[in-house]
């Protein structure tokens, strides 16, 4: 009897946790469909705020910037991180202590420190060379830097999970180095690459702090636009953007998770 009470208590706690996590998001999504202007009262469903978004040049450009930034940085991070992940795998028997720390550090470093450092660095380079004017370019570089560790670790763990003899089997079966990459390595780690891409994409879309410090006047992304807009108060329009972002990130994160769960026999 007592056990049953405990079980119920725990079940209740679980739902409380879920509510705590998702209720705020639900409120934002709900109010994005609010027919009235007021953020205080809900007066029926409407798509007017979404329609309003579509007509707002500033928002559309911020959306475009976010997408260009997320896709470009993810592709670059995928290429570099994949090579690093393979390198870590190939040299896993050596003592790589400090190298692993170097790879992990950007993950645990506070975003604000990372952002400020990147900004200072870009400004310095710009002073000396005239290159790296703050804008999408500098943002892409900054995003690639924090995405690389995630890609490298995902790719590395995929390689570690493989039977090492497979690499020898590929050599033994007449595959040249290039063909080993094309016909064995890339197809074998494909699920890891897809997972890493969507994780990078999500991280990029989510990021505000690092983007904020490295952006230029023309390269505001959605989070930066929202930050600017809410200084004038939370409008239902912002709710609509937030709801769309929640949807996009949920899809990307689900794809990432689905592919990272794929196990080899």
């Amino acid at each position, binding site marked *: 009897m007592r056990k049953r009470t405990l079980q119920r208590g725990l079940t209740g706690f679980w739902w409380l946790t879920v509510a705590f996590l998702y209720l705020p998001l639900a409120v934002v999504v709900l109010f994005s469909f609010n027919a009235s202007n007021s953020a205080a009262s809900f007066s029926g469903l409407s798509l007017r705020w979404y329609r309003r978004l579509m007509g707002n040049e500033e928002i559309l450009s911020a959306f475009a910037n976010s997408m260009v930034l997320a896709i470009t940085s993810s592709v670059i991070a995928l290429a570099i991180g994949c090579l690093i992940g393979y390198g870590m795998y190939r040299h896993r028997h050596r003592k790589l202590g400090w190298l692993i720390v170097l790879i992990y550090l950007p993950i645990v470093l506070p975003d604000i420190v990372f952002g400020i450092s990147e900004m200072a660095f870009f400004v310095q380079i710009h002073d000396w060379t005239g290159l790296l004017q703050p804008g999408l370019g500098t943002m892409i570089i900054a995003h690639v830097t924090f995405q690389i560790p995630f890609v490298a670790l995902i790719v590395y763990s995929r390689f570690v999970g*493989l*039977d090492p*003899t*497979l690499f*020898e*089997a*590929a*050599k*033994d*079966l*007449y*595959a*040249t180095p290039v*063909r080993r990459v094309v*016909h*064995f390595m890339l*197809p*074998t780690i*494909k699920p890891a690459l897809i997972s890493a891409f969507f994780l990078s994409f999500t991280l990029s879309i989510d990021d505000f702090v690092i983007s904020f410090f490295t952006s230029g006047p023309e390269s505001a992304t959605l989070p930066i636009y929202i930050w600017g807009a809410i200084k004038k108060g939370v409008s239902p329009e912002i709710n609509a953007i937030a709801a769309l972002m929640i949807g996009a990130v949920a899809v990307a994160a689900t794809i990432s998770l689905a592919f990272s769960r794929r196990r*080899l*026999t």
Partner: protein
Amino acid sequence: MSETITADVADQPGATPVTAERQQEAATRKASSIEMQGLHKRFGRDTVALDGVDLDIQAGEFFTLLGPSGCGKTTLLRILAGLEEPDAGSLVVGGKTVTEVPPHRRSVNTVFQSYALFPHLSVRENLAFGLKMRGLPAARRNAKVDEIAGFIKLGDLVERRVDQLSGGQRQRIALARALVCEPDVLLLDEPLSALDAGLRSQLQVELLRVQKRLGMTFVFVTHDQQEAMVMSDRIAVLNGGNIQQVGAPREVYERPVNAFVARFMGHDNLYPITARHGDRLTTALGELTAEEGGEGELLLIRPETLDVLPGEVEGRNHLQATVAERLYRGSHAEFRLEIGETTLQATVNNRGRHLPDMGDRVTVVVAPEDLVTLSE
């Protein structure tokens, strides 16, 4: 290389025996000999894997590298495959020096211990992998895969996914994947060690049949001396990076050259020779007459060559013993006999006659021609 042996053999339905001439023909067309000279390999500073190995393997031979783990047999196989480069020495396969040729340019294929089937490919794609890497067009790849599938009798396994296969099935796919490439030499790295005993002996027979029908040179690595004796034309016993003995299974088992080979082949009855007068050898067992005195300082008595008679019988090479232990195994019985302070193992075939019991006094009869002397 245009007309292939696998194709020829596979054309025949089922297990039609191949004629001797046909086998001969196959051997001369396909198989390659291997010559190894002064192969040295060291890992790190002080791990010597191979310490100067000279070995010739004949074309069409089923050759086994036998030894305990760490003896260098796997390193030797990996050097043959090209997966490891020797520090010194040369390797000639089929008359061509291949010491520094990378694995993807050697006409040598390996059946790996873990089978190493590609998980991202179907069974058919696994089988076709080597052919694809060699640039064979899809139609010919498929034809060859079907031929080998018929030859190894894979049936509908070809259309399955790798994760749907059992251990024994994986083993046969791994064998087929290597054979379909028609290599000059096939290397097998303990390919049966992960299987249970029944399946293992079944696949031993199958592997042996495949080798005889193709006449291909097989180099087989194992630590199991029973398996080595069943399969091989010749065996090389390795220890500490050195070859201890090379010979036919009977030679290695019945006439081991030293104590290591004798012990590794499963012999326990080894006795230091304390004195010798011509063909009369003195050991802890007493004085025994051998056919020849020999040179070695150890005497080997194989348990299955002994006659065990009930009671005490006097005679030349008759030893009086007490039964200390009897293990009844159905087809035969194993005895641990005590002669003074010394023990002697004897195996007696169960012909339905009286088998001595524990504590019985018996007489062991040793035939002079069955005594072997060897060095430490």
